[in-house]
């Protein structure tokens, strides 16, 4: 969407904390050019609200009971939802930050942000930019420098080996034979690979691994 256009930015807010969510919606509706078209207090409701409303942006909390914001985001991306997602959270934990980025977040902002910062960040994310809160930017730099953010660390050596054989068109049995392991062990490796790469089948896993430079 071109933010230079006069059309309103249509927002869905997902947060289990009712007081915070209602207050945030109150702030957003008073900001010029913004329209809140949906709210959800949990991940499951968020999936249906976002699927039906097709918003320009989703503001998504990370820490929610039952279905976390990151799990919700991963499910959205799996469903093919392309709406930009701005994580809005109190969490500065590395696993949340990395998890959100890997799951397909377009921005990561802390709840201690000023309303004006939120307004600017929403516009930037809708315009196609990726935005990180200043408080977590240093963490990302440190993680990348230390190699923890390297996709190669996603998979074990054996899992990469399995993926290489699959990419060559080998069957599960043939892969097991090549690696001197049972067919069941190969299937276990494949299940872990699908989970880690957040894909649903072998072809997608090979495509994703190629994209990440793993094979």
């Amino acid at each position: 969407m071109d933010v230079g256009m006069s059309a309103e930015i249509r927002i869905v807010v997902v947060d289990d904390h009712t007081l915070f969510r209602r207050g945030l919606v109150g702030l957003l509706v008073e900001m010029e050019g913004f329209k809140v078209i949906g709210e959800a207090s949990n991940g499951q409701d968020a999936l249906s609200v976002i699927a039906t409303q097709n918003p320009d942006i989703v503001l998504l909390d990370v820490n929610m009971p039952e279905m976390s914001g990151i799990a919700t985001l991963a499910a959205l991306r799996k469903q093919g939802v392309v709406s930009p997602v701005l994580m809005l959270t109190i969490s500065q934990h590395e696993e949340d930050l990395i998890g959100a980025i890997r799951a397909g977040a377009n921005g990561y902002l802390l709840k201690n942000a000023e309303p004006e910062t939120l307004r600017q960040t929403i516009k930037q994310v809708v315009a196609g930019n990726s935005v990180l809160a200043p408080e977590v930017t240093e963490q990302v730099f440190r993680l990348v420098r230390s190699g923890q953010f390297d996709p190669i660390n996603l998979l074990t050596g054996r899992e990469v080996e399995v993926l290489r054989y699959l990419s060559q068109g080998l069957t599960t049995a043939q892969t097991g034979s090549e690696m001197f392991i049972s067919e069941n062990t190969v299937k276990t490796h494949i299940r872990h690979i699908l989970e880690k790469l957040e894909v649903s089948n072998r072809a997608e896993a090979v495509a994703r691994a190629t994209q990440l430079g793993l094979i």
Partner: protein
Amino acid sequence: MSNHTVIGSFGLNQISEFSRRLLIASANPLFREGLHRLYASQWNAQNVRVDMATTMEETLNFLESRQPDLVIVDHDDKTINRGEFLNRFVTGEMPMKVLLVSLASSEPIVIYNRKYLTAAQVEDWLANPWDE
């Protein structure tokens, strides 16, 4: 934004004209200001003075200087510490209500309601202390 907000057209020297005093203590502007907007019309109609504290020190200062009837505390244990606030609340004598909330938790919100009753009033209160 200012650390204290007066809803309506009342001035600082007219504190006594407010029927109620409310303090929102939170280091998170989105929560603080969002909550304020959410209830602005009700608090305005109820002639409530609203102050906002962004740090522990400001919170404790407002407790002394404003003696609020209700304090909404968003504790994060970094800027505003739950234990420190509760310690002050317990050792204090102000008959205020306290709503304890944390953006970091999905736990239920806790409300404390301190009352002062005469001995005669306590007799009535004890007859049915369960419903208020």
